């Protein structure tokens, strides 16, 4: 019994971080109808920034969130304004944005390899290799911290979206972009802001992942595949769905790892995804959106 609880807790801790990574991606899709294939590559940028700050200034990775989040926010707004408005008029918008973000992912990977080489890196603060016991439960400190920060950021995001005027405008744009324009929402401003927000969540994720897993520039392909599975499962554009999907899949994969072995863990994601999509093609919380 305690053993199952242990697996559940480990799954939920990891799921918290996945949830934050996925909510940034699904937010972007919801507001802009862009599937950002470079999301995980941007996460890696933040991981490397955290790495550089740790190696150079011995800055704690959790403190470097205060650097990576605003920097990634600015990068997001800048990239949006530079690249996306000109595509919006195009009848091939979806195809173009897929190509664009795929290209961005390649560029980021190339730049990271050029700057940091292809070797494995990891950030090793003291808590990266410690763990604490809560009752009978064994909890790796790094995962506990990462998960707590992720949930805190998710709650902040929820409060922002639910209770502020700008947040309400973002939700409105996600539900119906045309209607948002009708009531006077400047959707271009909202898109830029959402891109920034999604990217700052990627920034936070990058800092947290840096001390949880070793990384190298091509690692993002693996992450983006996982993230796409999460947001499709939750329903594209639904943040609630992304969070629940992430927790569900992380727990499922933790149990599979325990029962059959870690080799089978990645496939759990895609198997669960297939099974759920067979019953609910729009995902757990997705509306049937048209692209």
């Amino acid at each position, binding site marked *: 019994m305690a053993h199952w609880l242990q697996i559940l807790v480990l799954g939920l801790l990891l799921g918290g971080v996945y949830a934050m990574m996925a909510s940034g991606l699904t937010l972007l899709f919801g507001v802009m109808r862009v599937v950002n294939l470079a999301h995980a590559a941007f996460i890696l940028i933040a991981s490397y920034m955290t790495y550089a700050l740790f190696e150079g200034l011995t800055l704690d990775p959790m403190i470097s969130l205060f650097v990576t989040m605003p920097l990634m926010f600015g990068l997001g707004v800048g990239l949006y304004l530079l690249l996306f408005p000109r595509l919006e*008029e195009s009848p091939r918008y979806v195809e173009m944005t897929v190509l664009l973000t795929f290209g961005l992912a390649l560029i980021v990977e190339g730049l990271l390899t050029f700057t940091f080489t292809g070797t494995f890196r990891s950030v090793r603060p003291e808590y990266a290799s410690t763990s604490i016991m809560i009752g009978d439960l064994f909890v790796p400190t790094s995962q506990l911290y990462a998960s707590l920060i992720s949930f805190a950021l998710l709650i902040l995001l929820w409060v922002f979206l639910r209770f502020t005027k700008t947040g309400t405008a973002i939700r409105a744009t996600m*539900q*119906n972009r045309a*209607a948002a324009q009708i*009531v*006077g929402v400047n959707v271009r401003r909202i898109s830029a802001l959402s891109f920034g927000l999604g990217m700052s969540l990627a920034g936070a994720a990058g800092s947290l992942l840096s001390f949880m897993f070793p990384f190298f520039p091509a690692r993002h392909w693996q992450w983006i595949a996982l993230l796409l599975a999460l947001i499709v499962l939750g329903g594209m554009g639904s943040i609630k769905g992304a969070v629940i999907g992430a927790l569900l899949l992380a727990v499922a994969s933790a149990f599979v790892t325990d029962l059959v072995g870690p080799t089978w863990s990645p496939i759990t994601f895609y198997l669960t995804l297939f099974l759920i999509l067979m019953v609910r093609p729009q995902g757990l919380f997705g*509306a049937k959106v048209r692209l």
Partner: protein
Amino acid sequence: MALLEVEDVVAGYGAGPDILTGLSVTIEEGTSYCIVGPNGAGKSTLLRAIAGFLKPRAGEVRLDGVLMNGSRPDQMLAAGICFVPQDASLFPMMTVRENLAMGGYLVNDRALLRQRMDMVYETFPILAERRGQNAGTLSGGEQQMVTLGRALMIEPRVVMIDEPSLGLAPMIADQIFEKIRGFGALGITVVLVEQNAVKGLENVDWGIVLDLGSKDFEGPADGILADPRIRELYLGKTMSKGMT
């Protein structure tokens, strides 16, 4: 000075052909209008060009004599030009109350918004009953009332309504038209686009007939409806094409 002047406007979508081919119309404060014409005449395109959703390729859109070409939709709305598109365009996962509140997005005075919301509930009592319900669960007629009520939240000077009766049962459509007629008393100038030309003209002061992207004819609505020659020439054509 006219409230709204459209002069020699040319407009179209993307790289496509001109839908409006040099169209001029004048909207006077306090008069209500219905724009009629066959499919593809440019009725909706005209509204979109005025509301800032479509940039005119040539010509001028003037509000109180001030050139407005190239303004964004939110800027046009702030200037008092409200557009209600034809596909009951609301926020399906927000409640009726939240949808109405979004109508006042550009207004920052909370007390004023509360007052206006009460006024909307007075105008559309059914919305008061449904206020806590998600807008996506309402019937077509009720959704249309939400979009009209939402337009009132900004207290626009002009409200341009595209096909208010589209997809509604005749009895429900009559109710909607009755509400729209009431907008005049609130000091709002109404511009309708209606496929059902007779129905549209019965509910306004002035009719404007478009064909092939420019104005064919305009005159008092009752005059158009009463004149069998005009009726056959314009409305007959409109009706028969509208039926196909």
